[in-house]
């Protein structure tokens, strides 16, 4: 059927791979928060209520965050798809 499988994603218990499994779980949560923050920041930016300095500061912070996220993904060899939480019939979280 077209749904994604409903079985929950499991963390690898194999000691060799547990680090990556944990990183995947943690980074998924961090990525979710990062995207929420980005969306909220964009809303403020589009509302036009920020000063030029505030915009610049906000943008730089988000850029750093995005870069750091990319570095972490590289480090643990994770792709965007690894960080997508599939919620079965509810669709994807990210």
């Amino acid at each position, binding site marked *: *059927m*077209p749904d994604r499988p409903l079985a929950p994603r499991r963390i690898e218990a194999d000691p060799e791979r547990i680090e990556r499994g944990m990183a995947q779980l943690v980074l998924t949560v961090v990525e979710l928060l990062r995207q929420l923050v980005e969306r909220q920041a964009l809303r403020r930016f589009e509302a036009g209520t920020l000063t030029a300095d505030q915009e610049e500061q*906000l*943008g730089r912070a988000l*850029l750093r965050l995005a870069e750091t996220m990319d570095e972490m993904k590289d480090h643990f060899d994770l792709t965007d798809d690894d960080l997508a939480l599939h919620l079965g019939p509810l669709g994807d979280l990210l």
Partner: protein
Amino acid sequence: MIYAYAVVRAGCAPEPTAGIDGAPVELLSAGTLAAVCSSHPTAGMEPDPNHLAAHNRVTTAMLATGAVVPLRFGTTFPDDGAVREALVARARRLEALLRQLEGKVEFGLRACCDEPPAAAEPAPPAAVTSGTETSPAAGTPGRSYLESLRRSRRDPAGGLAAPLRDLHHTLSGRAAAAVLLPAEEGLVAAYLVGAAESSAFRAAVGAAADEDLHAELSGPWAPYTFVTAEASGA
């Protein structure tokens, strides 16, 4: 084990197509829906190239009989009863999908252009750069990041080189739905096109391609991409 290829309307007459490993393809109906299936002695199905090709052959053959909801490769059920239960449990969404996909096929596109991709950040349209806008390059990386976020939210094709973006917009205009697929570079997308408009769609791709823009169209396929997109709420 029952292997399921696609969901169609009950009562449609499938072309006699050989399924995976040459197994005969049959319809298992429940209510107004039917699953296109074949039975196999094995417990699962390995995604080897022959099996994948057979899966595609069956779903593509079903396109001729009307609306098709193709299933992902590897959808299996223990027995006939389980197939019917699954159809009943998802009947509402499957019927909505069948209505939506009626008479439509999927085309896949891969296109790239020789022009150097206009960096990660395409130049904003000329109209936007006038007035108080600061130049994105000049010492305001923060602001240009926000701008690029805004562009990519407004226009998912915003990160593409201009000729590819134009191509995507043109083709999206001719399609009932379009999805940009993740790609390292270039334009990779799927378009849901009315079967009757297929040749016009092909022609539009042909017309856009030139020395600098290579476009490769595949299909018509059963609308896999649009089933998944629908199922994930997109």
